[in-house]
Structures are given as structure tokens and as C-alpha cells.
């Protein structure tokens, strides 16, 4: 069993419930103990840091200080939290003046930031710590023939990611491990628009449109994402893209943990498939029945 301090982040509590559910569900079979960070707060988030950088970094630093006390690596499935927390971590290391200021503020709350905690993304932990070979050994319901577009988005691979920012491979390999086929996806680390979807919707819709087009033309039956923001933008706004660009996309956008769970033989309802807006039922039918029977036997 491997132990981690777990930072779900706001999205997994509210909108990306499926991501939270499926992450919890796979942790047991993959022998990871995800211990939720006690009294965690918002990571500081991207829009916030655009207007109040000091406040935002303090908010992040509070989580880091809490995590340091556990002595475990801090793991989050949310790319945005991963980016914000690890960026705060590196900036606090690089800029002593900023660090002193933040330390002072944290001290008022009885906390201390030493700069010793490692912030990690769930995908990276699965790839590096758990390992594809171990995952493969646990696959009981291979997703044979399923064509999946591996969508990394930005913040897993940039600015401080663990995989190549231009042509990352880890998710491709993970998808192959599950028995599915990772389709070519040239825009695999292209931006989904992130939170621009709110203030600059037209701009973001343009980006989402490009992504859906690229995934579809490359033959994907569904998209696997590692980020709640990407998932929301591609899933929830697919209908609007269709009406704006006169397209007919019907592409399920799944969290990679949902596919992973399915391959591990976990029941679909434990993986939150009912929370996806574009239904994956049709595409996943051959595997959901199999999952049920695997479970029953």
C-alpha cells in the first residue's frame, strides 16, 4: 500500500463529482491510500491569482503548510489545483521576499511553510509510482477496440509538468494499458479555454470546437481527460458548439479514472458515468455489461 495526502479541490466536490468518485474507486484496487488533507481550502485558482496574487499564493501556501505536517506527498487529480499549488511551491522557493511575506501571514494562523512538500498530479503518481505494469496486472475488463483521444490539456504538462509539453505520451500509454487504443490527437496538449469560457465565451468556444474537430477526425469514440476544467468545457459546452458552428458532435468526454475503473472491473455507477452530460452509454455498452458480469462472478 502506498500512502498519499489527498487534495480533491473544489471541482471534485461540486462539478466533477465523477472524477472524485472514480478516483476513490480505483485507489483500493491499485493499492493507494488517499488520505484527504484535513481542513483544506481552495487552491487559490487561476482567475483569483490574476487579481490578487499575494492573497492567492497565501491561500495555496496554507494547503502546502497543512500538507507538510503529514509528511506525505500531496496528490490532486485536478490539473488546475496541481498547477496552482506546484507553481506556488516553486515561486515560494525561488523568491525569498515573497516567501518571507507569506510566512508572516501564515504564522498569524499558527502555520509554518518550510517548502518540503511535493505536489503531484494523480496521473503522474499512477504513471510513476503505481506503474503501468501493475495496473495492467489488475485489468480484468480490457477495453478492447475502444478508441480514445488522450487529452492532456495545459496544466498537467505546463509550465512544470512531468511529461513533454508538446507531445506527451504517458496518458497514451495508460490508455493502451487498459486495452483501449489511444488515437492520434495532435491537439492533445492544446488549451480548452479554461475559465475564459465565462468572460470570453466566444473565444473559448472556438478552442473547444478545434479540439472536438481534431478528436473526431482522428476517429476517437470518446475523450479521456485529466482535468475538471477541460472536462466541463468539452462536455457541457458541446451543445453550444454544435449550435454555433453547425456541427453534430456527440463525443463523450470522460475522466481517465472512469475508464481506468471500468477496466479494473468496477461497476459503472460507482464511477459516476451518470454525471457526464454527453452520455457515454452507447460507446461503453460492451464494457459496462462486461464490468457487471465480472463483478458478479
Amino acid at each position, binding site marked *: 500500500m502506498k500512502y498519499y495526502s489527498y487534495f480533491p479541490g473544489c471541482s471534485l466536490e461540486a462539478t466533477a463529482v465523477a472524477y472524485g468518485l472514480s478516483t476513490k474507486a480505483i485507489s483500493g484496487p491499485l493499492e493507494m491510500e488517499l488520505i484527504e488533507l484535513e481542513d483544506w481550502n481552495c487552491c487559490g485558482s487561476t482567475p483569483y491569482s490574476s487579481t490578487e496574487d499575494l492573497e492567492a499564493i497565501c491561500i495555496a501556501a496554507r494547503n502546502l503548510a497543512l500538507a507538510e505536517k503529514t509528511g506525505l506527498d500531496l496528490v490532486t487529480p485536478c490539473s488546475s489545483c496541481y498547477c496552482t499549488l506546484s507553481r506556488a511551491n516553486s515561486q515560494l522557493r525561488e523568491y525569498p521576499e515573497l516567501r518571507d511575506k507569506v510566512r508572516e501571514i501564515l504564522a498569524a494562523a499558527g502555520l509554518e511553510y518550510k517548502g518540503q512538500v511535493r505536489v503531484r498530479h494523480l496521473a503522474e503518481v499512477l504513471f510513476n509510482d503505481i506503474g503501468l505494469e501493475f495496473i495492467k496486472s489488475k485489468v480484468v475488463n480490457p477495453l478492447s477496440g475502444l478508441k480514445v483521444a488522450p487529452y492532456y490539456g495545459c496544466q498537467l504538462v505546463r509550465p512544470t509538468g512531468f511529461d*513533454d509539453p*508538446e*507531445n506527451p505520451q504517458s496518458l497514451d500509454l495508460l490508455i493502451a494499458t487498459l486495452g483501449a487504443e489511444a488515437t492520434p490527437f*495532435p491537439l492533445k496538449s492544446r488549451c480548452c479555454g479554461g475559465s475564459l469560457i465565462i468572460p470570453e465565451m466566444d473565444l473559448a468556444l472556438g478552442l473547444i470546437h478545434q479540439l472536438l474537430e*481534431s478528436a473526431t477526425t482522428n476517429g476517437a469514440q470518446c475523450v479521456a481527460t485529466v482535468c475538471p476544467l477541460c472536462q466541463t468545457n468539452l462536455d457541457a459546452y458541446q451543445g453550444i458548439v454544435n449550435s454555433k458552428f453547425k456541427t453534430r458532435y456527440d463525443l463523450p468526454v470522460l475522466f481517465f479514472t472512469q475508464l481506468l475503473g471500468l477496466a479494473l472491473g468496477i461497476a459503472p455507477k460507482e464511477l459516476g458515468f451518470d454525471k457526464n452530460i454527453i452520455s457515454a452509454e452507447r460507446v461503453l455498452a460492451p464494457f459496462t455489461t462486461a464490468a457487471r458480469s465480472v463483478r458478479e462472478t
Partner: protein
Amino acid sequence: MEDKPRIGVYVCHCGTNISATVDIDTVTSYARSLDSVVVAKDYRFMCSDPGQDLIKQDIRELGLNRVVVASCSPLMHEATFRRVCEEAGLNRYLFQMANIREHCSWVTENGKEATEKAKALINAAVRRVFYQEALEIPEIPVNPNTLIVGGGIAGIQAALEIANSGNKVYLVEREPSIGGHMIQLDKTFPTLDCSACIMTPKMSDVGSHPDIELMSYSEVEEVSGYVGNFKVRVRKKARYVDEKKCTSCGVCQEKCPWKAPSEFDAGIGERKAIYIPFPQAVPNIPVIDTETCVYFKTGKCRACEKFCEAKAIDFEQKDQYIELEVGNIIVATGYDVFDPSPIIQYGYGRYDNVITGIEFERMCNATGPTGGNIVLKGGSAPESIAIIHCVGSRDEHYHAYCSRVCCMYALKFAHLIKEKTDAEVYQMYIDMRCFGKAYEEFYQRIAEEGVKFVRGKVSEVTDQAINEEEKGKLILVVEDTLLGSVIRVPVDIVILATAIEARSDAEQVARLFSISRSADGFFLERHPKLDPVATMTDGIQVVGCCQGPKDIPDTVAQASAGAARVLAMISKGKVELEGITAVVDEEQCSGCKTCISLCPFNAISFDEEKKVSRINEALCKGCGTCVAACPSEAITQRHFTTEQIMAELEGVLV
């Protein structure tokens, strides 16, 4: 001490470099007040002729026997003032320098503090010089033979310059033939001479020169000794072909059934397992590549041997070791071409028609694998070609420096494409750098030929078409920064103008010759402007691209400069050694031999009769290792005696 010390102190203003911060009058009168100081003077430029004369006159007229100059760094002018002392009849080791510029006025803003520091530094120098003694300066003869490492254009040029003066040169080349990168090039900018045409006469001169011993397919393994008297061990790698018997008929490579990518053709063509790298190779003797040769793997084949009428094939040949004695060494080991595969977004290795500059040179060359035709993989003619500049250069992720030749060779490529095809040519550049003689004119000529220039760094090369015209093409995405718009440029071939980088084994080579490297990985010259050929190790020169990226004219000029340095040394015939050596007090030596194993120059031997260590002064470099290590304190280093060092320390501290 023979005479009572009579010290003269000379304080330099260095224009205003020192005097703007340090109060010269205060410092000079302070110096005058110090013990044993007979005279203290100041002058605007102590290094000028009148400044030097001032010191000489005082030595003669006031009977000075010690001199201190307070001015700049000893690196700058210690040699000057030592010579001044000698011209006035004073041994050079009776001179001491106080650095009140780099160590004081340039780094101290507050005038008062600077003045105090200058006083302390002068006090230290005065106290030290009090104890300094005259030392003998040994001279040794210079071995007139020269070792040149690397047989590219730099090594060839230097070898011919030296050998033409009647002196012996050993030219060691790692590859089977000399020629280096230049012989791979098609044409040369800006005159468009055929590279092979201007180079092969020089190569053939090297091959037949009575005073050049060419050691191809050989590597330097060990270097010891010092300027004037180096000892070098060279490994002559087994060619498996007897050079004396081989008639260069070429039948062996014709009959050999096994193939590998040709190094000479930058991997775009093939050669055999036994091969002469290219037709004009010097020496024109084949070599067997044991990685590819099936006989070396399975013990079967021997086709080459069967067909060789001269019976020159020798599978039993072994590496040979040869010891050389030389007085000077020229390092001309050249450069590596940057491998663009890590720049994933440019698709090198992923797309067939993304190629490097050196690959294009071979494609363009009539003796190359396409017979000089510029074609896509598969053989069809291109409609458009783009050249991406600064690939691996001017990029903090790879090399921050400018490789200096890419702009020009990219222009040359454009001309060759225009000459041989109907293709459109795009240059994607950041800045055009056409600095050499007739280079700007060449740029204008290419612009007139209708080449398109796009100012911007390409963000990616992709095969993902977004319209019909782009289908089947490679599309470059770039901001044309002069238009202020992002543009997509569909082309058939993309040429990456790859950087020049230090050899991958530059670190080992630097260690082998005891020379340093600069931050960019190239070998470090003694001074970037005034001594760009010598290294910090006497007797070793660096020339050509191993010292930094440069074009052919600069390489040839630097190689000639290196040769001139060597010839000056040979014609002088002798070299002065440092008088600062270590000496063993035989009374104190306990014979423990600790010093012997520590000496990096093998300068210490053991006198079995007297049971004491003895230092060979010709080999001792005065590094002080044995002095510090000797448990009996029996070893003293001349010019760095305990007395002298303590006096200097006291001078700073009081």
C-alpha cells in the same frame, strides 16, 4: 639576505580608473612612511614608457633592490613591470604588484574605504617584497616537432603552415580520412566555390608532405610533460587493412555485401561494412566497421579478403600504441552538429521531409546519394522549401549563443534551391546576421533571386491540414512579426538550420590536454580579444570551431595564427620555465614519500642512497601540493615561503 632592502613604491592613477575613487596623495605618502621604503611616487599611467622609465631610473639612481607597483591586476601588467625591473638589472622576483584597481577602486564605491583598502594592499605588498629573493630562471630547449589534433580545415591549415617551414608535424585524425565537416559541404558562401574543389588540394598536400606524418583513424590517449617537451601516446585503431599493401582499388567495398548509413553522407546515404568514406579520402585506404561487418559477428563472409589482389585485408590487425615527443600541440577538434530531435514541435525524425542543414548539403552534392538532386523522400520534386533558422541556437533551452554560420548557409541553400529547382524558398529567421566580408552583398543577391523572408521563429511544423491546399504538405506555423499576423506556410521540404555545438566528448578532451572550457562548452582561449588562440596551458593552442562557432575564413585565419605561435616558439628554440619551484630541505626530510604520490607532474623522485625526496626543477610547476602535504615541513616553495605569506597577511591585517 645580501643587502638591506631598499624598496620603491609606484602608485598608478590608471587615468581615472583608480584615482577617481582612491586618494592617490594619501596612499603615496602612506607608502613613503613604510619601513624600508626609500621612495614612493605616483603617475597617471605607470605602464606607459615614461612610467616605466621612472621606475628604471630610480632603480639605478637610488639603488633600489625591491619594487612594488600598485596598479591593476597582475594578469594585466605583471609581465610588463617584471621586464622593467630586469632591464634595470633587478631580478624579476624582487618585484611585487598590489592590485588596487580590480580588487579596490572598481569594486569599492566609497572613496574613504577604497583609500584605506589601497593602503592595506600596498602595505601587504611592501612587507612581502621585503622577504622576496632573486630566483634563477631556468631555460630548456624546445622540441621542434608539433602535434596537431584534428584533420578538418583548421588542422590541415595549421599542419601545412608549420610543415612548409620545414618542421615536423604529426597530424592525428580520429576518422578514417581527414577533411572534417568542410569536405561534406557542397558549396561555400559567399563565393559559392565548390567545397571539395578548394579543399582536396590541401588534403592531398597533407597526404604527401614529407614533413607531415598523418595518423588517421587514430586518437590521442595520453599527454604528459610541458611546453617544449610534451610526451603523447596515440592509439592507432585497427583498420583491418594493411596500409602498405593496399592499392586503393576499391574492389573490397564493391564486393562487400553489408551496408550501414554513411557518416559522410550524414546518414542519408549508405556505405559498406568495409569502406573508403568518400572518393577523395586521404588516406585513400578503406577501414572495416566491425559493428556492421558480419565476419566479426559470425566468423563467416571474408568476401573482401577473397577479392583483394594485394592481400591487404588483415582481420588479425590490432590497435597500435605510438609514443610521440613534441614541443607544441594544436587542438583542432572541431564541432558537432546539433541534433534537432528534442525539438519535438519541428518533427525531425517524425516527418521524412524535415531534414538538417548537413543532410541538405549531402543531398545537394553531385557525389551525394541523390546525385545532387533536391528531392522529397521518394524522389519527387519540391514545389516549396522552408529553411528554419536558429534551430538549437539563440535558444535558452539549447544553446544561448549564435552559431554565426547558419544565416549565411541558409542563404546559400536558398541560392542552390533556386538554381536547381523551381521551388519557392522561405527563410524563417529571427535576425539576419551577415557580418563578414562580402556577406551582406550575398544577402542582397539572394533577396534579388526572389527568396521570401519571414521574420519570426516557427512554433511548429505539422502535417495537419486545415484546407485542400495544405493536404500532403508540411505546414509551418509562424508569426510574421513584420506583418503582425500568424501565418501558415505549406511546403514540401523543411530544412533545419541546426546549430554548431561543442563536441560531445569536449570535456574529456579538455581534461586530456589540461585546458579549460567556457560556459558554452567550447575550449577557452587565454584572452577573448588579445589572445584568442593560446590556452592557459603553455604550448597548447586551440583553433577552429573547437574554440567557438566560426566560418571557414575565420577558421583558416585562426589556424594560421596558431601555427605562427608554434613557429615562433620553434624559432626561438628555448623556453623559460617558471622560477617558482619547490625545494626539499634534505636535513628535514624524513623520507616518508608522501609528496611523491601526490605530485601531479611526476617531478619528485626518491634518492635511495640518502633516503630523501628530490624535486626535478624542470618538471616542477610550483603548484605547492607537496609543500602543503609534507608532514615534516621539509619542502618550501620558492616565492611562496611561510615568511613571505605571513608578512603579506600581516600587511593586510594591521
